[in-house]
């Protein structure tokens, strides 16, 4: 826009840019401040929250790794997250195929039903499943939480895979069929490789959805802690810097998951925009 503009206009445009930057800088600071704060806190030597920390130590990391309750909770959350990922892909991939390619009655309704867990407040889903699971004596079972998380992860899986499948050129598959491939071969050899980046992205999102989820786990976990539930209880009961160390570790785990998505999937930005 500024290439052909006279110098005075260009100066004004530059001034506008600077003004915009000045407005946005504190907003960006507001966005990252809470993430930055936990790093020094996790390395503090003080037994209570103090900022800036009076000295540096690894004691809160030691307290995390030395406490079987924390480790148990972390392992349980990882297992639940992995199960949720597999389960939501196992039912979500066929569903996405079905919704995009199918022309049967009730398809729109099913589509709405499958994405609605994203819209319905999690407290409602939690209380509803809690009522059912209490009756079925499933409270405290890790796979119960994984099943409930699968419902929450499903919208992400079908939205991402749905978008990918819709953008796919179906004639490639037709060509494979025409060349004598079976329908299954065509899907496995042509379609799946084509949508693989989206599958990775959907998997990462499903994992994060579960790994980060508190409200459902709070109701369904019983005495079996998940990582977010343990964190919640810790924050509520006592403010102890162990939670800061856990926070840092969690930021690292999520960052790794996102880097995987960036490398093998469609990228974190694409994920968020969707």
């Amino acid at each position, binding site marked *: 826009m500024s290439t052909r503009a006279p110098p005075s206009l260009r100066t004004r445009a530059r001034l506008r840019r600077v003004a915009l930057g000045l407005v946005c800088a504190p907003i960006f600071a*507001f966005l990252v401040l809470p993430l930055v704060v936990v790093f020094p806190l996790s390395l503090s030597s003080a037994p209570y929250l103090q900022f800036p920390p009076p000295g540096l130590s690894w004691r809160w990391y030691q307290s995390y790794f030395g406490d079987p309750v924390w480790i148990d909770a972390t392992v349980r959350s990882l297992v639940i997250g992995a199960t949720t990922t597999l389960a939501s892909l196992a039912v979500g991939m066929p*569903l996405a195929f*079905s919704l995009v390619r199918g022309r049967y009655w009730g*398809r729109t309704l099913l589509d709405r039903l*499958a994405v609605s867990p994203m819209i319905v407040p999690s407290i409602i889903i939690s209380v*509803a499943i809690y009522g059912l699971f209490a009756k079925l004596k499933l409270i405290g079972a890790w796979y119960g939480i994984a099943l409930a998380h699968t419902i929450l992860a499903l919208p992400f899986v079908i939205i991402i895979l749905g978008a990918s499948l819709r953008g796919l050129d179906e004639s490639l598959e037709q060509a494979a069929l025409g060349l004598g491939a079976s329908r299954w071969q065509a899907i496995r050899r042509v379609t799946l490789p084509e949508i693989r980046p989206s599958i990775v992205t959907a998997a990462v999102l499903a994992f994060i959805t579960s790994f980060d989820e508190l409200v459902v786990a709070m109701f369904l976990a019983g005495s079996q802690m998940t990582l977010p539930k343990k964190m919640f209880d810790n924050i509520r009961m006592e403010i102890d810097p162990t939670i800061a160390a856990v*926070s840092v570790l969690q*930021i690292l785990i999520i960052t790794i998951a996102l880097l995987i998505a960036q490398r093998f999937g469609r990228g974190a930005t694409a994920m968020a*925009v969707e």
Partner: protein
Amino acid sequence: MCSAMTEAAHAPRASPAVVERRRQRLLAALAIPALALLAVLFAYPVLRLIALSVEGGSLTWYAKALGESLYLEVFWITIRIAVIVTAMTLVLSYPVAYFLATTSRLGAALGFALVILPLWTSILVRTYAWMVLLGRNGIVNKSLIAVGAIDEPLALLHNELGVIIGMVHVLMPYMVLPIYAAMRRVDPDLLQAAEGLGAGTFRIFRRVFLPLSAQGIYAGCILVFVLSVGFFITPALLGGGRVIMIAVLIEQQVRDVLNWPFASALATVLLVATIAIYGIAQRATGERTGAAT
């Protein structure tokens, strides 16, 4: 469409219509596992919850929820906080989205990282960090006292202000991204045309750019408002038991008071409100989320 093809199935040979019908049946079958899961673990429990609220065929619990001033106050606080959070989120997000949409590629990539990083950080981590920042002896108060801006620590935590700050932080990405997407769709030629026709910067913004990005503002506001209304974690922690929003009340009724019918009635009101807001919003814009649309 399906029936129209069935008519053609009378043709000899394994006609395309037969093949297509078989394919459609297979495609429908692919939805069965997900449908079963959704029916058992989503639709049935939610319907069961709703049924619980009208057990015995009476609306007593709704009368309690919507009649007693104690609980009306909760609805009022919830709506008030949701409105304030939506407004503040919009004010903070619009310039950021504008920056992202108009800056250089490097600037946009950096800015995006700053917007998206919090989105993928555990909400618990962020809420905890705000407790550290906003507490009586927190970083914000200490810094303000150190520079002499205040003498006494401000009450920033365990009240509505703390809840609002925390929620704005959590929900900002949900506002930035739709507005950004709408701004990217604005045709730069239109802005240039307006400039060529002699409109000033402010006038171009107000008459051309703002209306064209309105769709994103609208989508972001609906999203943030609906998410705010059902929010649980941030009010539960930053409110310190003093800011009771509807989701917090539902949790208390289920876990502490064990009053299931009342909790169900509250949940039903929340659910109906959520669906109604989305329904109205979708009717207005004609936009839908989903795999097929």
